[in-house]
């Protein structure tokens, strides 16, 4: 029988509680994001809460496990995707009159106090949430988990701290 894998990260209690609670944290962040135009909150708040859930997973399970699932490049691609989505919503306002026009609300106004009521505000919240969440997760990864060095062929590489010689991106 083969040896059990060495468990990285924190102790068993923290890992079990993290397994239970990381999902509800993401759902809570999505809730704050989608009801940003009805109750206090916005896309910024929801995005940061979602990033906090991923930071919790990274802290409890070790960086190798967490980044193996999610990847550093995935965070940067999501951040760029969110920023481009926000800019696209802004440019689509030209379909109305001017830059950033709330074209959905102007064309077919919906009754207020519903989830899909405020036109482009909901879409802007989603785009901002994706962008801010991915950016904050990238900041945490850059500052606390990863070192960036120049590799042998002159290109930049991201290497986890403590495994500089062996592990590569």
């Amino acid at each position, binding site marked *: 029988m083969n040896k059990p894998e060495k468990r990285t990260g924190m102790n068993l209690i923290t890992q079990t509680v993290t397994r239970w609670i990381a999902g509800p944290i993401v759902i809570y962040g999505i809730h*704050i994001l989608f009801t*940003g*135009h*009805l*109750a*206090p*909150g*916005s*896309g*910024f*708040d929801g995005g*940061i*809460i979602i*990033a*906090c859930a991923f*930071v919790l997973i990274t*802290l409890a399970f070790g960086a190798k496990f967490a980044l193996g699932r999610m990847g550093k490049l995935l965070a940067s691609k999501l*951040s760029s995707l969110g*920023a481009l989505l*926000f*800019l696209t919503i*802004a440019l689509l306002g030209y379909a109305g009159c001017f*830059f*950033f026009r*709330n074209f959905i*609300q102007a064309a077919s*106004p*919906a*009754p*207020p*106090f519903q989830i899909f*009521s*405020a*036109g*482009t*505000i909901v879409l*802007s*919240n989603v785009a*901002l949430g994706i*962008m*801010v969440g991915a*950016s*904050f997760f*990238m*900041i*945490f990864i*850059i*500052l*606390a988990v990863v*070192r*960036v*060095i*120049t*590799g042998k062929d002159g290109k*930049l590489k991201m290497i986890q701290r403590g495994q*500089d*010689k062996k592990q590569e991106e």
Partner: protein
Amino acid sequence: MEILVTLSLIFMIIAALNALETKDLLASVVSLSAVGFGLAVVFLAMGAPDVAIVQVVVEVLTLIILIRATIRHDVTSFTEGTEFFSLLVGLVLLFVLFLFSLEAVRALPPLGTPVMDAVTSAPSHHYLEHGLRETGSANIVTAILLDYRAYDTLGGATVLFASVLGALAVLRSRPLKKKKKTDDE
């Protein structure tokens, strides 16, 4: 409400002084986070829940990043104190700023009066009266942030994006030397 704001400000000042003067690094970082939480209480007391949510969440994330990234396992306390002359200069500057701020606070209207009522052509009247009808959003802060002044939000998102790029660019370290060459070079 003013009592809550005053108590929170006193708590923040005490926590900031503790963050400066304590020798243990972990206690210093936690005191900084206590300053942030006191500020969130002040925001709630002034009636700004959106700002309070952002303050609390960013404070938690900053605390995690500070602890994880800066506190290493071999440096746990900071034993170098401040010199006397720099302390004296700091106190003199603080006193001068205090005198100036007394004059400035005396000219402010009391807490809670709407300042923009004095100018009838201010845009805030238009936002408050026609905000729900024009944007369809019940939260007037989100309506202003994402519909009336969405250009400013685009600027803020650009700043966040650029700061992440800057962090990635600045934190590049020099290439590691090979372990075969020892220190006798």
